[in-house]
């Protein structure tokens, strides 16, 4: 009796471990986007925006303002691809240094990057798909 109980307990534990290991497809995608985005961030963004997304003085804005990140979710792709030369208000502070364009980044790479910064530094926005990056880029292109 005791043996049967122990066996069934072990089976349950093993089952739990197994189920947890197999993340849902969406979670796996997000993890893949995030980790690719991290290395792109280190290459293209970290110098100015910092290891922890802290920015630099009043030169380069931080990426830790969750309200800004929420409000700009649909404009981040355009900011990254085409840069910015005007003023941006982040965390109540006006920033007027130009942000360089990154014309060589593909839609997929921009989706990776946005997934990384939107799920780091206190932000939690889930995965950014390349299809929505493509739509947003077409939109800001039309406005330029």
């Amino acid at each position, binding site marked *: 009796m005791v043996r049967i109980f122990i066996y069934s307990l072990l089976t349950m534990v093993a089952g739990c471990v197994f189920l947890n290991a197999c993340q849902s497809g969406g979670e796996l995608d997000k993890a893949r986007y995030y980790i690719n985005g991290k290395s792109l961030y280190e290459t293209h963004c970290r110098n100015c925006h910092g290891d922890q997304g802290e920015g630099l*003085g009043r030169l380069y804005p931080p990426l830790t303002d969750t309200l800004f990140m929420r409000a700009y979710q649909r404009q981040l792709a355009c900011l990254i691809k085409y840069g910015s030369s005007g003023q941006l208000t982040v965390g109540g502070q006006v920033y007027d240094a130009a942000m360089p364009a990154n014309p060589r980044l593909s839609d997929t790479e921009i989706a990776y990057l946005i997934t990384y910064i939107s799920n780091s530094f206190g932000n939690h926005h889930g995965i950014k798909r390349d299809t929505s990056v493509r739509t947003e880029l077409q939109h800001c292109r039309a406005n330029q």
Partner: protein
Amino acid sequence: MDNLLRTAFGLAILASILTACSTGGQNHKLPILGHREPVTREVNGKTVTDTVYQQIPAFTFLNQDSTVITPQTFDNSVYIANFFFTSCPSICPTMQRNLLKVYEKYKGRNDVKFLSHSIDFKHDKPSKLKWYADRLGVEGTQWQFAYGPKEDIYGISAKYMVFTAEDDQAPGGYDHSGYLILVDREKHIRGAYDGTDDEQVALLLEDLEVLLDEYR
């Protein structure tokens, strides 16, 4: 007996090495970097040989307030020099972020100064340097931002042993190394640290205190 002797001998050597290390630490002084040459002269009929060390030569630049700065601006202080430009998209922000940490630690002291030379002589006029210093969070003149003609800035970078060059292929149009150069009151180079490497910047903070000890 033989074994005992051997052990005792080994211990004696170990002890002397340990003592040598610890006394070395107490009298630790930074080396003088760069080239040096012996100069021989006659003093009272005797031949005396002095070593002449590399020194930062005379320079005249404009700072962020369009005021002239020369080596005399840094008299009675040690200083940290580097080369950057305001629109640099590559290593400069990291280097300046690290130098800013050093600046904030020594802010308000007149025996530690900072000198950032812009290598973008086309765009970084004094007004642009002022804009940059302000946004970096630098007030006053403890941290000088130098503007000068191309040949002067690129010429002085060699004297600090820092590589700078115009390069269309480099990000932002200029290529340069991100060294932070520690200069003593006699204008000798006492240390060079990679301004993009956290460990090197920590070493700079240690060495700066060692250098300041020479003047205490």
